[in-house]
């Protein structure tokens, strides 16, 4: 069975599907596709022209179409509409097929001939409420990153603590920054006003989106966002003189850190300057937000950061508000097509739980580490900018669409994307993830970005129209329109055809078509998507339930010892484990693990002992 990962970047839980309702209902695992839109394919074709699309359903030409070579027409396999080939396809013949019709080219990529989009913008948003040494590490990392930036890349710089400082990198006289009150919400309109984008110009009365199109001069934008090569000196100076936040925290309080407002300002800035074009907001934080919208904990140290227990009990006073705030923030970013990346380095929590919605919706990156000096951060951060073999292939502005046969309905997508609310006949009434749409926005995507698309496949016997052409096939077409890291606008289409099975061998075929790994991934996504506080509690409850079930089958009744880590009962479990690190070992405790207080030997020592005996004999 060809699962299609190498060719198409696709894995499906079920590659075949029962044609009968009864059998379909037995399939507990949902039908879903795990799709990696930018996967580097072994034989993907990159075509230097635009796609030919079905006039009815907008599907792109694909190997599954029925071609009438004489009439120069083709029938769309998804909607059965008949289309004419235009002039460029005049030479079409069975032995002279365009690449997109070749059977193995189920995935092709079209490259638009239109000029490249604007280069990506990197807006660094840096927390300065971190210890001096951490700040030093961070500065070093940023300084290095600047040198790694693609030449065309545009940069901006925001630092924050109690207030938000937007650095005007285009101002050459002295370092200059705009300061926003960290306790106050700042909208994009405020940004437009405050940063004097409309000086001596009439501000459009309504519906400002801004950017050059809406009246901002390129000059005024270049005050804040400009090519790295042009502001390297200024930027380095700013970095060099970046200080720990001057509003020094009291010793008995958390630092005043306005992560939320800083992000609002950042989003406002890119939203005002470069809406709709590639931009990443890269947030570097070293602690929880304590000021302004999106606060997750108060400055008072006597109040501890919310834990899962608090969330469970709804005892996290800031949580709900913060989630709402970041939700709105995510919407704004999606509207602007901008990405949020989070680099959080702290021994304590920083509030990713609240922020994550924005990262997810925009397809951003998250890196968590203990310190900005830690290699996890340093190496990850460097990778982001690397342009050689291991680059992440960061791409932007993606729009992902699904077309499918009539008997297939789309329930939704779980993955780093946001619904574009494009409803159609293909939308299922059942919704999983981002549903009720056939198109999604991927503000940011890279080679590793994958989406999990859930389908509602109506058994053949129920779908009236089924059984005509390609009788036992059902098809999906996945279209991804995006800005490639090179700046080109591209469209990747992947067309998939899967079969219905019926009759006595159906079970066998179904099993053969089952992809266990894909199913595991899909289930995991589903679980994590559903996982909120209760969901997590349920998850924890599961082993308890399992053990109860097992115990009921045992006689005599087994003793149940709950071995919480670091609890006194933990020794029972540890004694049963392979004691590779004991109080006797000279290595000390491995990180994150415990000593085992036992004189028992470990498996390794036992094996060494056996080897010795074997050699002796």
């Amino acid at each position: 069975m060809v699962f299609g990962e190498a060719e198409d970047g696709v894995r499906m839980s079920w590659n075949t599907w029962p044609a009968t309702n009864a059998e379909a209902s037995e399939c507990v695992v949902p039908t879903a596709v795990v799709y990696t839109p930018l996967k580097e394919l072994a034989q993907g074709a990159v075509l230097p022209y635009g796609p030919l699309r079905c006039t009815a359903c907008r599907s792109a030409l694909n190997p599954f179409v029925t071609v009438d070579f004489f009439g120069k027409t083709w029938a769309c396999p998804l909607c059965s509409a008949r289309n004419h080939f235009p002039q460029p396809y005049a030479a079409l013949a069975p032995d002279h097929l365009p690449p997109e019709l070749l059977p193995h080219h189920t995935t092709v990529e079209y490259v638009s001939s239109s000029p490249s989009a604007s280069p990506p913008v990197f807006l660094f948003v840096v927390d300065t409420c971190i210890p001096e040494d951490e700040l030093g590490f961070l500065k070093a990392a940023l300084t290095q990153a600047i040198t790694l930036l693609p030449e065309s890349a545009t940069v901006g710089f925001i630092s924050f603590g109690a207030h938000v400082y937007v650095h005007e990198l285009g101002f050459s006289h002295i370092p200059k920054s705009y300061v926003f009150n960290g306790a106050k919400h700042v909208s994009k309109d405020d940004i437009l006003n405050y940063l004097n984008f409309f000086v001596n110009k009439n501000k459009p009365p309504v519906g400002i989106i801004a950017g050059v199109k809406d009246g901002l001069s390129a000059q005024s934008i270049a005050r804040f966002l400009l090519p790295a090569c042009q502001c390297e000196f200024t930027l380095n100076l700013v970095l060099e003189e970046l200080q720990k936040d001057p509003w020094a925290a009291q010793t008995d309080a958390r630092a005043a850190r306005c992560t939320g407002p800083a992000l609002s300002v950042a989003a406002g800035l890119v939203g005002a300057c470069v809406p709709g074009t590639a931009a990443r907001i890269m947030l570097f934080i070293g602690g929880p937000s304590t000021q302004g919208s999106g606060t997750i904990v108060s400055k008072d140290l006597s109040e501890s950061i919310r834990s899962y227990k608090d969330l469970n009990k709804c005892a996290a006073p800031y949580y709900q508000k913060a989630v709402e705030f970041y939700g709105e923030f995510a919407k704004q970013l999606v509207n602007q097509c901008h990405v949020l990346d989070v680099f959080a380095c702290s021994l304590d929590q920083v509030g990713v739980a609240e922020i994550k919605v924005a990262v997810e919706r925009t397809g951003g990156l998250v890196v968590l580490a203990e310190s900005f000096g830690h290699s996890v951060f340093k190496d990850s951060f460097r990778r982001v900018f690397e342009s050689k073999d291991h680059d992440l292939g960061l791409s932007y502005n993606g729009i992902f669409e699904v077309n499918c046969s009539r008997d297939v309905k789309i329930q939704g997508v779980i993955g780093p994307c946001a619904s574009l609310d494009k409803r159609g006949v293909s939308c299922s009434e059942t919704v999983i993830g981002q549903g009720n749409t056939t198109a999604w926005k991927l503000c940011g995507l890279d080679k590793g970005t994958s989406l999990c698309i859930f389908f509602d496949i109506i058994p053949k016997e129920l779908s009236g129209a089924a059984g005509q052409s390609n009788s036992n096939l059902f098809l999906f077409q996945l279209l991804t329109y995006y800005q490639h890291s090179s700046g080109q606008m591209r469209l990747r289409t992947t067309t998939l055809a899967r079969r219905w099975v019926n009759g006595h061998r159906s079970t066998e075929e179904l099993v053969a078509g089952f992809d266990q790994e894909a199913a595991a991934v899909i289930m995991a996504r589903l679980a994590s998507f559903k996982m909120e506080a209760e969901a997590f509690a349920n998850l924890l409850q599961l082993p308890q339930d399992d053990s109860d079930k097992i115990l009921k089958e045992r006689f005599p009744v087994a003793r149940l010892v709950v071995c919480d880590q670091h609890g006194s009962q933990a020794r029972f479990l540890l004694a049963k484990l392979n004691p590779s690190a004991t109080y006797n070992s000279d290595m000390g405790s491995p990180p994150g693990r415990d000593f085992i207080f036992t004189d028992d030997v470990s498996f390794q020592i036992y094996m060494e002992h056996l080897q010795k005996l074997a050699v002796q004999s």
Partner: protein
Amino acid sequence: MGSPVPPGERPGYPNSTGYPSQRAFTPVPSDSAGALAGGMQNLNINRPPPPPWATQQAPRPGAAPQGMQNSGPPFVPAGSRPMGMGVPFTSTNPPHAPQSSASPLGVMPSGSLAARPTGRPAVRPAGPNYGGAPPVSAPNSNMGRPVTTPFVQRPNAPPSRPPGAMPVQDGLGSPFAPGLNVNSSNQGINGTSPFVQGAPPMRPPFSQGANAMHSPAGFPRSSGPTAASGAGTVPNAQRPLASAVPPPQIPSASHTPSPAPPNTFPAPGLAPSSVPPPPFAVASQRGPPSSSSLYAAQPWRPPSQQHNYPDSYVPPPPPVAGNQTPGMFGMPAPPRHLSQTIPPMPPTMGHPPGSGVLGMGQPGSPAGGQASGPSRIDPNQIPRPVPNSTSIIFETRSNNQSNLPPSATSDFIAKDTGNCSPRYMRCTVNQIPCSGDLLSTSGMPLALMVQPFALPHPSEEAVQVVDFGENGPVRCSRCKGYINPFMRFVDQGRRFICNLCGFSNETPREYHCNLGPDGRRRDADERPELCRGTVEFVATKEYMVRDPMPAVFFLLIDVSMNAINTGATAAACSGINRAIADLPEGPQTKVGIATFDSTIHFYNLNRAFQQPSMLVVPDVQDVYTPLQTELIVPISECREHVEQLLESIPTMFQHNKIPESAFGAAIKGAFLAMKSTGGKLLVFQSVLPSVGIGALSAREAEGRANTIAGEKEVHKLLQPADKTLKTMAIEFAEFQVCVDLFLTSQSYVDIASITVVPRTTGGQVYYYYPFSAVADSAKLYNDLRWNITRPQGFEAVMRVRCSQGLQVQDYFGNFCKRIPTDVDLAGIDCDKTIMVTFKHDDKFQEGSECCFQCAVLYTTVYGERRIRVTTLSLPCTSVLSNLFRGADLDAQFTYFLKQAGNEIPTTPLKQVRDQMTELCISILHTYRKFCATASSSGQLILPEALKLLPLYTLALTKGTGLRSDVRIDDRSYWLTRVASISASLSVPLVYPRMFPIHNLLSKDIGGSILPLSLPLSSEHIDSDGIFLLENGEDALIYAGKMVSPDMLQQLFGVQSVDDIPNNFLLQEYENDHSRKLNELVNEIRRQRCSYLRLRVCKRADPTEFLFFSLMVEDKNALGLSYVEFLVHIHRQIQTKMS
């Protein structure tokens, strides 16, 4: 305890080296011109080398570079005094120069002046001149106050008297009240003039003078009885005077201590032949004319108690040839009569020193011979201020009596002998009415002009600092009044009785001292607090709620498009850059800088950084400070950053296209940055605040429309537009932030609204309208420099206490008042005056004394907490005529001025004008009714002390504050200025001085720098003359149409007036005329503590109208002529009488 600080260590302001005791007017150095935005090169007022700096800058000696100052003699030359009204004593008397070195008065070597880096001061070093001063004995040096009659003068002041030996002006006055006869019915002798010399029988003034002058204290010993006997009867009294050579004159001439030989002052006009008979009769009127009058019943008090203020005075007779001391300005001229006789000649000073009061009605024919001619009023003969150029020494008390203070506008050296110097406190009346009824009958106000940090004369003893250790100063345990010379120690010194509340306190044991035979403590003379009217106490912890604050100076500069384009930003930056060099050094001195347009730009001055960085606060509705520290840093640590920043600000913003100004938000932001310390916020603002907190609208247009429409509420535009700024200002004051505004505008900025901030925080407003970078940069710099270097204090609280019987009614000035008894002064400096009014709540005993005590708790610029206590004890009287004798013209007029300032924003102008006139009339009426009953009703009798009140009142009603055709901003600015104006500057503000400057080299002027000033009447504007008119702040130059091109060439380097550029800068050319003019201008600057803004008024130009509108004695659209006004007043009085 209470040990006086040795002089060398005195922290006292002016004389100690720490402060420049005078204001320096330094030119913008040529090399800095380039730093200013284009078009400002002309600032280089003085061409470099030889005389590198034209006299233009009139550098004050005090402006000498620090090093120079320190190395120089510790004292400051007198001539450099910023405050003095008078000309430096001696510059007029070169012949005496030699003496100068021996003069006890400080002399600054001229060399040190010449060494000033800013260039040779144009002005002749004042020091030597000063020293050359003739013995300062001229008793009558008070401007406008006819202190001495010739009679009294004669005996006093022998020429040989050493300077200072003579108490200035005690008792010199003649008791005669000159009568001004406004006689419409030919009552005059000649009968032809409405103003006839009043024939009322007048006695010559007492001859007490002679004795008085011989008394060691210089106190007149004139016998009361004599005075009494003379009361208003002897008709002949005036005859001798008027008729010709009154014997007194001779002595008076001789009294001129310094030779001032007649030939020095040829004053052709004075030639006997040309001397007309006195135009006015000498209505020598004795104070209480008739015993029948209730109030007049009490004659003069015994001489020793008299301050001998003549309450009226007899215009002098025509001078006798050879005798006359020309009424030269600058002369220690005694001779009132002399000048009186001078026909309306240019050089004459409008009115002779003595002639003060209108002896109107004597048929003096103005230009006629000595014989009485046709009677008419000669405008030259009616009372006008008489300048004097000599310094007098004034002892505040002698023989346990308070002495009448010299005029605030005169040049005097006060010796604190128990009462504070009149510079610090000046009362509207120098004898306190025993009862409230008496006060209200008099029609006079009872108010104190308090200027606690007034700049002393350089020759005055510095205020002594007394440290009582940790117990703090001794105070009355009931009223908390501070120990002062008038607290009476009893019971062998074990107790003392508070002179304010009468409570008997126990003397603290460690403060105990035995009493001498005279009942005084034996140590009284060693303890400043027991023998001085002004002392400073070191404040203990008890007086602090926190550590004394550092001296913080935060500079806030407008960089909006307009400010950039007009060069205001460049001028401010350049001015600041130069001025900060003069900030008091030390770790306690901190600075911060911010700029603003529609946003606020702060600067991080942390020296750890390579350069300052800019932090923009864009939210002008809800301001915050971008950093907690680093915005305000010690000047010693950030001088380079600050200099670099100020140099680059004009460049950084040169393309700024933002027209809006967020003034309100900017000051709020700066305030937030300063909140933790407090300090001075200096704001340079160019346009109307249009965005952010406290934004204002251009309501002036609305005002114009209303005016045209005859709308009655026009004055509302003189009130703040809303309460936002007031609320902010109160908060500023609470956190000890004092705001000064430098308004470099070219359009309406709604001064009425924005000045609420400086007025509430003890700040000041400087107004440069219409701003010209070329013409105003130098003034801006000098104003700023003076602002930051003048004696001043921070976080001050002031309270005035007074003896039981009176209570404080209200305070007026620039401050914030949160509780009724105290005023809070975020900043207080030497230029600020606070008026305090009083009312009776009880009666005083005749013969008792009423004491006023002002205590100011403040922090010095060096971070020391001090209490400055000034005490003034005045006799009480139940005799109305004594009240008039003791009336203080300057203080009373200042009261008028401030009262008008208070009324204008809430009352239609015409009403205020009428109120002011009525106020004047009612005082004169009272006098006429109760103190001059004997005189004929046809006479206008003016009390001697207040004889100029009508003139000043007239000028006031025609001035910026009250005339109707004034821009709203100009009026608002005037109101602001008036609110804190001192007694010494209030008169020139409404009655400017006018000097002819086309004949500065003529012998009339002799050696004096200042020529005689002219009456403000267009009669004196000769068509071939050039005139300079100054009011303490601005100066106008007007050239007649026949003026010689040669003179123009010499003075201004052009052939025709029209060639003088509008933005004109005075330069010094290589000729004597030009040098002299520069000297003159510099001298005025020195006197006024202000860098005069010079403007040229051209014919057929609005400026010409401006110039002539200042001729307040003319009849014009603004009102009556002076003579007509006197007639008007007289009629009103007559009406009231009948």
